[in-house]
Structures are given as structure tokens and as C-alpha cells.
């Protein structure tokens, strides 16, 4: 995955252990990974480091993941940034809200991290060819 080696991924996840496993998985695939446990620091990090893709939890301690998603879209405009919602909230209404706020993919926990890695790679490849 040499093409993806320089891609930066921002993980916004307040479950520290899960964020660590995600980071290990994605780093093993050659991505550069930054993590944030809250929405506001994540947005500051995104403004400073411009991630190529973001993985968002929905229930964060300081703000809704939906709001983080919308603000990420605004921050990164006009460059497209794929956003993956990775959440324990799996009701149809939650998915609808996720896509309405700008998510490209909605994955429900628990989820195979290898699948998440494939999703990330696929989204980044789509962005490259868009």
C-alpha cells in the first residue's frame, strides 16, 4: 500500500482502547494516524493537519459526532474528505442522521477492523480517482 503510505487519517473516538486498536490497525496498513477523544480538539487538529479521511464516533463527551461531521465538511471544503461514521448507534434513524450530516460510510460497532481498513482504503482510492 505504498500509495496510501502518506495518507493522514483522523480518528475521533472517546473509547481510548478502541482508538488504540484502530490506530494500530491503520498504521499497520501504512497510514499516518492521529487521534482525538473529543470533538473540539479533533476539529482543531483537522484545521492544523488537514486529514485525508476521518473516522468519527457519534457520542462524544463534548459534542455530537453529527456536528463534528458537518464542521469537518465545512473546514475541509472545497477539498473532499471521506468521513466514516464508526458508532454503536445502529438504528435506522441514526444512520439517516449520519448520512444527512455528511458521512460517506456508516459502520456499526462491533465491526471487523480489517473491514474498516478496507473501507478506508477504498474511500481514499475513490478520492484519488475522483
Amino acid at each position, binding site marked *: 500500500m505504498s500509495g496510501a503510505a502518506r495518507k493522514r487519517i483522523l480518528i475521533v473516538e472517546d473509547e481510548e482502547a478502541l482508538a488504540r*486498536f484502530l490506530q494500530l490497525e491503520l498504521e499497520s496498513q501504512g497510514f499516518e494516524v492521529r487521534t482525538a477523544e473529543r470533538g473540539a480538539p479533533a476539529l482543531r487538529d483537522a484545521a492544523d493537519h488537514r486529514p485525508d479521511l476521518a473516522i468519527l464516533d457519534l457520542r462524544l463527551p463534548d459534542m455530537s459526532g453529527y456536528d463534528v461531521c458537518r464542521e469537518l465538511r465545512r473546514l475541509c471544503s472545497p477539498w473532499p474528505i471521506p468521513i466514516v461514521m464508526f458508532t*454503536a*448507534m*445502529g438504528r435506522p434513524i441514526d444512520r439517516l442522521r449520519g448520512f444527512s450530516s455528511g458521512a460517506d460510510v456508516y459502520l456499526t460497532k*462491533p465491526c471487523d*477492523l480489517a473491514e474498516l481498513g478496507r473501507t478506508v482504503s477504498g474511500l481514499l482510492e475513490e478520492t484519488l480517482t475522483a
Partner: protein
Amino acid sequence: MVQTLVADPARGEEPPRPDPARGSARLGLPVSDRWESLSDLAAGLAHEVRNPLAIIQAGVAFLAPHLPPADGSVARALQDVRQAVDRIDAVLEGLLRFSDGREADRTQEEERKRR
């Protein structure tokens, strides 16, 4: 209360159909409020349980390549953990569908009454 509403799909169990009138009378709540509360409770429960489930699943996936193949008992143990995670998740999914389905039924019924 949750135990009485949760069935294990892996065992072919169907959730019992509670009597809404009986429950609402006991709680002193209108039926509509009770189902809304149940839906919120189910969503909150699923959220709180699925996060640790995700950690367990991720941890197993992380450990798997680092463990010795030995006699297959390690692989079997990991598979048992994965299956247990899937079972719990299926129970949660059943609970969510049950509560959301009843919520949708209630909404449709109220719309019919309004017409």
C-alpha cells in the same frame, strides 16, 4: 425489565409480545410515551454494550496473529470469543428491532386515528 424483552436469535428465540396496556398502567404512562422510552432505553443499552464489544473484537483480532498456533486450542478459544461477541450483538439487534418496530407500529396507529 430488559431480560423479559430480549430473545437470543442464535437460539431461535422470538421476543415475547408484552401487553402495552398492562405495562403503561403499571408505569402510569401513556402507551406512546412508554414505547418511546423503551426505544430510547434500547438505543442507550446497545450503545453502552457495543463499545466494549468492539474493544473485545478488536483485541481478539489484534492478538490472533501473535499467539502460537499450538494444538489449535488457542484458535478455538479465539473463535469462541468471536462467536460470543456475535451472539451478544445479535441480542442487541433484536432488542433494537423490537423496540423500533413497536415504535413504528405505534406511530402508524396514531396516524390512522388522526384521519
